[in-house]
């Protein structure tokens, strides 16, 4: 009888480990407690000993692979007698966690809407909630049995209780911003998060002078992702300026043609996306991943652009795949669809994953330029700012032109300032000269 060995939590609260090497090969005999692999975790490199004797049947991973806790990493054969005596691993994750992607993708995973697992089967009828949530429900007079849970494992969260106490709040939700993808404010344009309860606790005037705003789940995820990024990458922002007068004229002409059918919606963003991809192909280090543990930089030969979308609950970044293989009209259609569904939180998990570079539109509300935060594990993020009439010097004359600031935040760990400047010069040239962009489009 085959025995499947699942990666246990060999530290305290680990989620994954990287396979360093196999100490056995398929077909090898194996003894109880004989080490069969070396795995690197956040804490140490550890040897894993076999719980059974018999032979090695299948190695499920290659050295270098990241294995999630709970995933089957090796199958032993002829180990039936010993294997049967084994109970489930003490720190084994639930079936829900098993086989999930590594932690780096978890952040994206929790953004996924509509995947709340069913109420814990062991307690049908009893609301699952923390003492704090119960106390909040008592205070607000909410019957927990009537609240629809949205938390992990069917748990009722504070937000669930609050929204249940004000059933009309759906109708009075703040008006949504216009759906045009061009008008997407970036994260930096959003208000600062509320002070943490720890800060407020003990302050006089809570309730009168200070209003407590509980964090939404999405806000927590954003907070985590932002501080993770700021603590990971060495952020530097390069700012440039582009004269897009010609591009805007060109776009307006094209827009009339394309939208003549009355159905298609054409925006300017796809043009910037194409220009960005064209520049990325010439500067591959900006479309990369820094694999620090292995001492490698991985240059990606595919171009999936994340597009920052402001939703009523916070920032989301759906990803447009294979931008280099699609025409601008198709991209425009995809953007309208993705941004719309992001605002309704109907994008799928897959549509939030796998970006290689991100564009954020910063100019809708105002400001000169902003310094966006890199979307991990990418290397750079491009901020597009408002197009405004500004004086410019052309052939020794001051003239009014359509001007735009563009900013690139990049990870100085693997991209130097010179390389970033070259990329931006290239990009600016492409959007200043639509003819050149046409010539270089693939």
């Amino acid at each position, binding site marked *: 009888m085959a025995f499947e*060995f*699942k*990666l*246990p*939590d*060999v*530290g*305290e609260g680990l989620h994954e480990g990287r396979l360093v090497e196999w100490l056995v090969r398929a077909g090898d005999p194996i003894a109880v*407690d004989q080490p069969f692999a070396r795995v690197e975790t956040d*804490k*140490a*490199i*550890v*040897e*894993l*000993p*076999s*719980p059974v004797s018999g032979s090695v049947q299948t190695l499920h991973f290659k050295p270098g692979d990241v294995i999630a806790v709970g995933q089957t990493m090796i199958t032993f054969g002829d180990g039936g007698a010993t294997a049967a*005596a*084994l*109970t489930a*691993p*003490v*720190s*084994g994750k639930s079936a829900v966690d098993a086989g999930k992607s590594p932690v780096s993708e978890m952040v994206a995973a929790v953004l996924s809407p509509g995947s709340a697992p069913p109420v814990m089967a*062991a*307690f*049908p*009828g*009893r609301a699952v909630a923390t003492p704090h949530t119960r106390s909040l429900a008592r205070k607000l007079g909410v019957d927990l049995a009537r609240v629809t849970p949205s938390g992990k494992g069917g748990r009722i969260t504070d937000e669930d209780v609050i929204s249940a106490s004000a059933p009309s709040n759906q109708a009075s939700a703040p008006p949504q911003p216009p759906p045009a993808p061009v008008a997407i404010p970036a994260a930096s344009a959003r208000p600062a998060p509320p002070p943490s309860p720890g800060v407020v606790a003990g302050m006089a005037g809570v309730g009168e002078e200070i209003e407590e705003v509980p964090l939404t789940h999405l806000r927590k995820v954003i907070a985590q992702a932002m501080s993770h990024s700021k603590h990971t990458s060495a952020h530097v922002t390069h700012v440039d300026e582009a004269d897009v007068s010609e591009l805007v004229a060109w776009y307006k002409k094209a827009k009339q043609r394309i939208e003549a059918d009355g159905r298609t919606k054409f925006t300017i963003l796809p043009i910037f996306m194409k220009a960005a991809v064209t520049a990325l192909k010439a500067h591959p280090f900006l479309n990369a991943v820094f694999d620090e543990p292995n001492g490698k930089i991985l240059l990606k030969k595919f171009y999936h652009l994340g597009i920052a979308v402001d939703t009523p609950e916070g920032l989301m970044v759906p990803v447009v795949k294979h931008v280099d293989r699609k025409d601008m009209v198709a991209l425009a259609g995809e953007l309208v669809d993705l941004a719309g569904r992001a605002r309704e939180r109907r994008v799928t998990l897959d549509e939030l994953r796998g970006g290689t570079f991100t564009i954020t539109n910063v100019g809708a509300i105002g400001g000169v330029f902003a310094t966006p935060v890199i979307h991990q594990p990418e290397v750079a993020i491009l901020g597009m700012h408002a197009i405004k009439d500004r004086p410019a010097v052309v052939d020794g004359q001051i003239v009014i032109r359509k001007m735009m600031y563009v900013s690139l935040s990049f990870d100085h760990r693997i991209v130097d300032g010179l390389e970033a400047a070259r990329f931006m010069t290239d990009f600016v040239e492409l959007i200043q000269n639509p003819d050149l962009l046409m010539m270089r489009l693939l």
Partner: protein
Amino acid sequence: MPRQVIFEGRIENLSILDKDGQVDKKLEPKLTRDQLTGMYRLMVMMRKFDEKALNLQRQGRIGTYGSLRGQEAAQAGIAFNLTKTDWVVPSFREHGVMMALGLPMHLIYAYWKGDERGNIVPPDLRILPASVPVGSQLVHAAGLGMAMRLKDEPSVVVGFAGDGATSEGDFHEALNFAGVFNARTVFFIQNNQWAISVPRKRQTAAESIAQKALAYGIPGIQVDGNDVLAVYAASKAAVEHARSGKGASLIEAVTYRMGDHTTADDQKRYRDPDDIAYWLARDPIDRFRKYLVSKKMWTDDNDAALAAEMTAMVEDEVKKLESMPAPTPVEFFDHMYETLPWNLREQREAFAQGDRS
């Protein structure tokens, strides 16, 4: 007014077996062949238990585990002086002492599996649950030692801690209290050189931990903690001192934690490999085996047979561990209070009945 010396202190270090197993004849304790080989068996048992525990953890069959490797002589030396009516007040690394007094191994494994039943000792033993908050148990040991005096029981209390714990206030309060109130307590400090990643020299500017006894007016001694005969001899004196009502004392057993602090630690990040090699040459089990062999009490055949016997015993205990029925969630409420407070009683009831219909 004259300037007078009012106190002068001296602290001894006791070592009987050197690292090669050569004995100091003048200090050699008078022990029978059975006692000596019994000590050796105990140390090998501890090591086999420990090796298996590390494997069980890496296989996901128990949780985080703290290894005692390298400290077998320290634990066997004190345990050999104790009886079942003595109190053991452990930190979280005294598995060796516990099994020496007869606590079944599978219960110790159960504790490290996160099963509260591992803390329920057989009724004929006086072993407190492992105390994870560093040093907190020493205050209990002082109090128990005072209780033994008040009840005039000839039972001794041994409070265990590491070098790190001697930087805690609890250590000093406990020693002071035990000194003033003549508690029947032995404070047994295993100075294994490392409090997780903090070295011994960062714990105190004093030359030894043993000398701290002087400030509290109790006897103190430093022993080679990897020399089971020295630990035995020093412990014998301390235990007799307490049992006969003369009061508390302090033993510093100088040893070395050969492994990681726990399975969630990586000692390679902060220790010098040369340091480990130095201590490997002072392994307590190797040293004692050389001594037994030189006394013609032990052979390689004996050793192979003992290893096989202990491996089989450990495997048997693992089987017992894994045949324990899984604890039910409701037992969660059962071990903390003699009588549950109302709110926990409510929760327990909700847990136990209606909600799972």
